[in-house]
């Protein structure tokens, strides 16, 4: 009997193309868009040399060294600047106004900077000038204290910079908030899976649909039929999630850390979470399929929004100002579970989120059970 119901529920569910679209095709398409939007961020190639100009003050002792340094910074493959030679300050002013340069330096005893915006490019220019200033002061000081020291050697040394900082990973992987978008997307797909759960309850509760009434008149234990149907829904949703994970990992090269088994376990937990959520809502809200769909959609969208799927900083805002909300949002828990697997070495964070998810699943399932176990209805 289990097999019969399972097979037919499977056929029935999988042929609902609209649902397959929302739970699988849509997340895949959205992931592709995410990928296109984000895959350039974080990469060094994204840096374009800054257009700058220099206006020389006319004092050779100051102009010459600055010219040497800035020309050096405007050469080669990894150049910082695109240098434009300005013959006069009014030239540079004109360029700046038209937006052809991000700013210009004026050389002299202290190098000055003229800009009109305060952005990343201007900040880099300022850092460059700061660095030049302090290095020159240091050289001057040394030359002053040791007039005998070799100036050539000194200048060579200042150009020959050492690297005093190295990056170490805080754990397995570096924090990468782009990944959160993809993890939140999987969570969203799991919660769209709530529609499958909704269908199962709809087709087993005689007070919701006539088909369910028909099943209720058959010599089949109601819970057995419900469990068989839910198993079919779970197999479909879980398979979709595995395919989605595979697409993200192998086609889009989204990292999930190196604990594949746990990633799959998380996907399974997420699928159960989504299904049971849909089942509960469907069991509580008796009439009106439209109302149920609206509730599930809105809950999924709000949950995803609060987990940072549309806007990443949302997650940090919540972690900072209303941390308990992060624990009460099942979509966020699922997102965090994936992130914890990717990011943390220890599993304690992961176990905590999974534990919380299990509590939610228990809640949803118990609630559904208490409603679905009734086999006589007060009204149809």
């Amino acid at each position, binding site marked *: 009997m289990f097999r019969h119901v399972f097979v037919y529920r499977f056929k029935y569910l999988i042929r609902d193309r609209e649902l397959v679209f929302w739970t699988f095709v*849509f997340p895949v398409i959205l992931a592709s868009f995410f990928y296109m939007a984000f895959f350039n961020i974080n990469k060094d190639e994204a840096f374009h040399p800054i257009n700058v100009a220099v206006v020389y003050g006319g004092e050779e002792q100051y102009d010459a060294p600055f010219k040497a340094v800035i020309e050096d910074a405007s050469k080669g493959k990894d150049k910082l600047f695109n240098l434009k030679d300005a013959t006069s300050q009014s030239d540079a002013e004109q360029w*700046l106004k038209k937006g052809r340069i991000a700013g210009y330096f004026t050389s002299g005893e202290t190098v000055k*900077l003229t800009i009109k915006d305060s952005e990343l490019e201007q900040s880099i220019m*300022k850092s460059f000038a700061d660095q030049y200033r302090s290095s020159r002061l240091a050289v001057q000081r040394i030359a002053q204290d040791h007039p005998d020291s070799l100036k050539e050697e000194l200048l060579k040394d200042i150009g020959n910079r050492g690297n005093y900082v190295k990056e*170490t990973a*805080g754990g397995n992987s570096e924090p990468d908030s782009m990944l959160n978008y993809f993890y939140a997307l999987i969570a969203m797909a799991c919660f769209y899976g709530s529609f499958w759960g909704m269908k199962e309850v709809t087709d087993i509760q005689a007070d919701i649909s006539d088909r369910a009434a028909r099943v209720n008149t058959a010599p089949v234990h109601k819970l057995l039929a419900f469990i068989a149907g839910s198993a079919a829904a779970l197999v479909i949703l879980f398979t979709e999630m595995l395919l989605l994970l595979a697409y993200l990992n192998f086609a889009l090269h989204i990292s999930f850390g190196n604990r594949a088994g746990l990633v799959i376990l998380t996907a399974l937990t997420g699928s159960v979470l989504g299904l049971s959520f849909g089942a509960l809502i469907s069991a509580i809200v008796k009439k009106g399929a439209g109302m149920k769909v609206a509730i599930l959609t809105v809950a999924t969208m709000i949950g995803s929004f609060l987990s940072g799927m*549309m806007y990443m900083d949302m997650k940090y805002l919540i972690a900072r100002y209303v941390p308990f909300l992060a624990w009460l949002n099942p979509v966020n828990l699922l997102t965090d579970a994936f992130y914890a697997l990717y990011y943390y070495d220890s599993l304690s964070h992961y176990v905590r989120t999974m534990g919380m998810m299990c509590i939610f699943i228990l809640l949803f399932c118990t609630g559904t059970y208490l409603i679905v176990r009734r086999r006589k209805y007060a009204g149809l």
Partner: protein
Amino acid sequence: MPVFNLCLKIFRRNWLAVFIYVAIFVAISVTIAITSVHDQSSGNGFTQQKAKIAFISEEKTPLTEGFRQELAKHADFVSIPDSKEQLQDALFFRQVTYVLRIPKGFTKNILDGGTMQIEKTIVPESVENAYIDIDVQQYWNLARLYVRHDPGLTQEQLTERLRQNLDGDTPVRMNVHEHAKTKDSFSMYYFNFLSYALSAILIMGISTVMIVFNKQDLRRRIFCSPSSPLKVNLQIILADLLFAAVALVALVGFCFLLDAKSFTTPNMPYFLVNAVAFTACITSLSFLVGNLLNNLSAMSGVCNILTLGPSFISGVFVPQEFLNDTVLKIASFTPTYWYVQANTKIAKLTDFDWQNLRPVFTSTLILLTFTAAFAALSLVVGKRKRLME
């Protein structure tokens, strides 16, 4: 005008779905307004963003203390217990973007001319970190310079020298009058975001009406009535335009509520013109979608993809300067791309002469070309559909 009234009735029936979009949209906009736009009014001068760092030193020497003070210029220190999990948490939730660790014996190693390194763990994409790196490198490179060329210095003397050298600031002159008030302002982000909400609402609303009217029986019934097809179509178009106008006014109205200041800038009329052109474009796109599709459930899928897709690849959610060139090339086949282009250009405008306005108008013109193309296509599709029945 019975057809016109019916259209309005259908729009009203769909208020819930529209409301959801508006609510999500306004929520996102407000969050962005709170977080990502730095206050322009206070910043008439030059401001550098400070990075939040966790400074962990395994030794305490005059040199490392001096270093700490130098760093304080460009960084806010956040104290976090030195445990792996807690540091990871801090990075994860962006309490800090940079964890810096000076290993034991670092000072001595540097003074001996060694090559020991400070360890950092960072949130990769945060730009503020770059300045910290620059500061770190500069401080210890200068220290090395002194060690090599003035080996007689004591550690305290060296620290003092470095403090003197690094003191002071590059004078920065801001040509404030040339700075466009709307650049990177809330309004620019808002108008970019508007394209998402507007396309979602319009495609959903208008194509719903079109699908209802394209139902075979209903259309036949209408065309059997004693009103000419032209009149019927004109009424539908009129209702759609009214819906589009109301949606536009409502969304722009929110912008006025959230950032009234921008409405006094000379840039605002151009934003509005651009938004109107975009609205026209999406309206005709919705017409096309409505003519191509037959059922409402397929419509909501198509609507989502048509609105989210271009928004992602055209720089609505992620600014265009961060997008890959190939992606942008693909995006340039969507009207959203040109709308965002025009917005970004408008936001930067300070001179409103022809030379500066031309690129803006070019983008707007392309939008209008899209509008005409969609309109023509939907006429062709609509006609073919009617003939095929």
